[in-house]
């Protein structure tokens, strides 16, 4: 796998804007962990084993707030619950009959918003039998880069000014926004995005912990029901 051309192509895809977008936020996260009193190996372990930034921030903030392990588990589960529909969605796209179950479960660790967007942006141009290796290259590089950037952020937090750190944190949501906008080609997707953003804002006042998941499920379901007749089968 690691010498295959699709794997290398996946790495090439990840190098550049995708790695910059995610890496900059991981750098800021490393700096945050340093200021919060974590040591460098703990910072490494957080990104190495979790690799989902909102949940990592929630974990660190719950520790600082004096939360229990159960608090942390449930808060992270709720925050990273967004990964569930993304995984259900991308798994049928990248798997083929030669990919064993354990490889699918292992590779699911690389599923994040950045890898999901970028895989969907190109998957129609990749042969089915090559998609899995391509995704491993793409997602695996983003994961490894995130670990390195977390460590770099931890080590160089004193060198970088606070204003630059704040700017770096802003890169990732802007990258998500632009990638979302660039994927809006079907009416059902446009409807889901507009409703998801609107409902999230409204529901945040009533159910702040659940607003993102509930808004996404409602928005996606309404978008699908309204425009399912327009689906073009591949």
């Amino acid at each position: 796998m690691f010498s295959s051309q699709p794997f290398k192509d996946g790495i090439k895809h990840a190098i550049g804007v995708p790695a910059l977008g995610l890496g900059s936020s991981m750098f800021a996260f490393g700096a945050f962990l340093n200021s919060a009193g974590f040591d460098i190996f703990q910072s490494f372990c957080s990104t190495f084993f979790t690799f989902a930034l909102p949940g990592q921030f929630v974990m660190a903030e719950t520790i600082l707030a004096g939360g229990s392990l159960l608090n942390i588990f449930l808060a992270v589960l709720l925050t990273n619950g967004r990964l569930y529909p993304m995984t259900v969605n991308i798994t049928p796209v990248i798997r083929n009959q030669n990919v064993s179950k354990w490889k699918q479960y292992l590779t699911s660790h690389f599923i994040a918003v950045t890898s999901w967007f970028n895989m969907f942006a190109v998957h129609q141009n990749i042969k089915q039998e090559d998609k899995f290796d391509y995704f491993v290259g793409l997602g695996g590089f983003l994961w490894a880069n995130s670990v390195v950037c977390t460590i770099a952020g931890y080590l160089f937090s004193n060198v970088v000014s606070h204003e630059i750190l704040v700017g770096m944190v802003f890169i990732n949501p802007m990258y998500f926004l632009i990638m979302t906008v660039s994927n809006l080609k079907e009416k059902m997707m446009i409807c889901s995005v507009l409703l998801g953003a609107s409902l999230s804002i409204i529901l945040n006042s009533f159910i702040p912990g659940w607003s993102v998941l509930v808004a996404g499920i409602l928005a996606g379901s309404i978008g699908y029901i309204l425009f399912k007749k327009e689906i073009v089968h591949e």
Partner: protein
Amino acid sequence: MSSQFIYLSILAASLGTYFCRAFGVYSARNISTDSPVFHWIKCVSIGVISAVIARIILFPEGILGEATSFSRISCTIIALVIYFSFKKNVLLAVIVSAISFALVNHYI
């Protein structure tokens, strides 16, 4: 906070996150790319992502929460304007909005 508690917390966070991914792989075992469920779950995924983006921009936590709403919203608009004005250049839009954000927060 003890070092041992932090490692256990990282373990708890990793298990909570991996559960979402592993359960996703399990749930997808009978879903094909041309099934209705596939298209529905794609809409839900993009709906969740847009909800996350809206929440980060309007109700952020952590470092972004220190910035003003004006800086977050105005620089989001800058990102979109740059993206559509310069042949949908993702890198330019992201970099210009981040630099604008840092400058607005520093000077305003």
